[in-house]
């Protein structure tokens, strides 16, 4: 309960600071002394943010679609964190997985029951292989994953750009880098397909994949030997080595699994949300996922909730930008503030003058050492 109260207070603090920023940035109204407009903007912005994320079935549907890749990539970053690795490469792994899934998606025309799982599997394999590169480099040469994954992200972006211009991938009537369409049967089924006449509810079953991924992550971490080994490696690599664990193999596997989850995020974006791939279908999701993993303290449940929160902000932010003159970049500010306030319970306690046991703080990242 106490941690719930701290979380709510952190959210409240972030909203208050965000409100101040909205008022202060309305320099035209402030110059005219029109405080009613400046303060009114705060309420209309937050109202639109809420209505756009949870206010209607359509808003919830939109939140779900924004959440899916964030949750999968969040799991990707979290599982690497658990093994003591910093996966900045979710973007690249997502691109690799997405392209693999895309290839399955447009080149096959079987029944959906086969195509869809195959596409997700292809995405997982593509992402896993790409993620494993950083793992192998780390295990064999000690090259730090922060460098290698950043480099691999850049390489993946150019690789996708090139692929989207090849005859295999490029849509036949286009000259810009845009892919063929995924076969309709290969699209991830819509979640609300059973509601007649609600074609506007675009939420797709990638959400089921994401929830399953969180479940698998929990089961792996707490119910398997290797999950235990991951945690030991993450807490103290020397201890893991000393206990006879094959740390190099674990390092490779951690990046492989991380890549698989991020690859599924790519697959779900391509075969669910878009139905094709463009140059930057991965967007900033890989980086947002780092914030999500940090916010959720790399735990399965925490990551899932953080992803829903970020997804809701994303969906609500679009509505806010459309209805008010507050730009969507406000949500990036809010995300930062939320992460900051949740990470600093001592500060929240000082602001709101509450007494609460903040518990022991765990560290996610144990320095740069090997």
């Amino acid at each position, binding site marked *: 309960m106490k941690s719930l109260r701290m979380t709510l207070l952190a959210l409240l603090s972030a909203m208050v600071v965000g409100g101040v*920023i909205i008022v202060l*940035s*309305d*320099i*035209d109204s402030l110059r005219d002394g029109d405080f009613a407009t400046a303060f009114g903007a705060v309420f209309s912005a937050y109202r639109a943010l809420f209505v756009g994320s949870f206010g209607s079935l359509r808003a919830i549907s939109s939140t779900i679609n924004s959440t899916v890749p964030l949750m999968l990539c969040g799991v990707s970053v979290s599982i690497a964190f658990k093994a003591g690795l*910093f996966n*900045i490469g979710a973007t690249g792994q997502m691109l690799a997985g997405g392209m693999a899934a895309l290839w399955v998606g447009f080149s096959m025309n079987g029944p959906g029951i086969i195509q869809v799982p195959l596409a997700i599997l292809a995405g997982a394999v593509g992402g896993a292989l790409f993620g494993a590169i950083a793992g192998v*480099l780390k295990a*064999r*040469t*000690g*090259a*730090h994953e*922060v*460098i*290698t994954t*950043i*480099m*691999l992200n*850049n*390489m993946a972006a*150019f*690789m996708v*750009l*090139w692929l989207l*211009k090849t005859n295999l991938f490029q849509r036949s009537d286009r000259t810009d880098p845009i892919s063929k369409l995924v076969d309709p049967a290969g699209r991830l089924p819509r979640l609300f397909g059973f509601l007649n006449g609600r074609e506007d509810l675009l939420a797709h079953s990638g959400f089921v994949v994401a929830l399953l991924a969180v479940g698998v992550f929990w089961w792996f971490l707490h119910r398997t030997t290797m999950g235990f080994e991951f945690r030991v490696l993450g807490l103290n690599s*020397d201890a893991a*080595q*000393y206990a006879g664990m094959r740390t190099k193999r674990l390092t490779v596997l951690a990046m492989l699994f991380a890549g698989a989850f991020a690859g599924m995020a790519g697959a779900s974006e391509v075969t669910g949300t878009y139905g094709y791939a463009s140059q930057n279908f991965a967007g900033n999701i890989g980086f947002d996922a*780092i*914030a999500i993993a*940090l916010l959720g303290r790399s735990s399965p449940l925490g990551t899932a909730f953080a992803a829903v929160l970020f997804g809701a902000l994303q969906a609500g932010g679009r509505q806010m930008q459309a209805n008010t*003159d*507050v*730009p969507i*970049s*406000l*949500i*990036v*500010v*809010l*995300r*930062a*503030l939320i*992460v*900051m306030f949740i*990470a*600093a319970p*001592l*500060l929240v306690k000082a602001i709101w003058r509450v007494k609460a046991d903040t518990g022991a*703080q765990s*560290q*996610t*990242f*144990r*320095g*740069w*050492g*090997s």
Partner: protein
Amino acid sequence: MSDIKSAGIGQSAEQRKRSRNVGVVYVVLGLVSATIFTNRPGNSGFKLLDDFIFVIPARPFAWALAITLVALGAAQLLRGMGKVTNVVLTVATISFVVGFLTWAASGGSFSLTGMLQDTVTRSVPITMGAIAGIICERSGIINIAIEGQLLGSAFAGSVVGSVLGPWPGVAAAMLMGVALSGILAVFAIRYRVDQVIVGFAINFLALGLTSFLASRVLTKNPQYNLVKPFSPYRVPLLSEIPVIGVVLFTQTLFVYVSLAAVAVTTWALFRTRWGLRTRAIGEYPKAAGTLGVDVIKLRYRNLLIAGAAAGFGGAWWPIGTVGRFDQNITSGRGFIALAAVIFGRWHPVGALSAALVFAFAEALQLKLSNLNTGIPSEFLLMAPYLVTLVVVAGFVGRSRAPRAAGQIYEAQ
């Protein structure tokens, strides 16, 4: 555990493996040179001066390069290079890049001097960001917020620079860097928040706030986003030297200051009392604290210094180049700077070398689009990252960070 590893037999096995990797890389590069670089006849011109073009026959050069690289690889694999390993590797890498350029430019010519000048110019924000990272991490605080510091200070530099002029703009940028570093310091030191978490939060905060303000305020008021950038300053006499004069001494103030910052930081870190104490609190803060160093105070001070350095690097965008701020104008350069910190093994000179490598890659990307090489431009654009990956894997290897970086320090 790690002490035993580094002192005992493990290290030499590790070295042997790295030596083998490097040998394999030489052979691979040699084969690339033999198969790809030899496929284009003609001469390649490198324009060094306005009236002097250095001409290399492309095909013979590629063959010579290929044979040399394979021979080097064989020597490396058979008996290793001992103490000159790194020198040989540097020379081999540079020769390979020259080979690549010769191949890319065959049948035409391009301005090598111009590209090198561009390289040095573009190295500024990466170098300054890396210096900020090094000072922080040498003091035991991980600074993953370099990107945010660069971005926030670029914004401050543009707005203040537009209203008050470029010099106050630089000052404002540095102040913004200090402020963002201050947030990192307060959260990491006072509120004992995980340094990576707060660092990332600062990145998001800077990205969000600057994008928010740019679209909400600057779009409607373009007069706040129009700086007069510094023009290059030709150093008397030195700028008259052929090639080097253009590359190094016909630059803006940013280049001179960043090179000076590398020298000063190196000297200060390794030759002064401040440096000794800084390295002590980064390695073993408890021992330093016991001996009377005020760990907390020194960490605060060093983080603020680092913020000023990053802020100066951020000012480079509006005041050193384009004269304005755009959303996410830094586009990941702060992370490249972070890579340069690790690549350069937490040493300012190493970081400068790494920054020059990355900046060269950037400058090359712009040039490559003008050259017709027959292979998809995407692969050429990918090459610098691939080269970095190979070099980091084969050459840098396991680098050792300051021991206390990332650990929370509890004052006694």
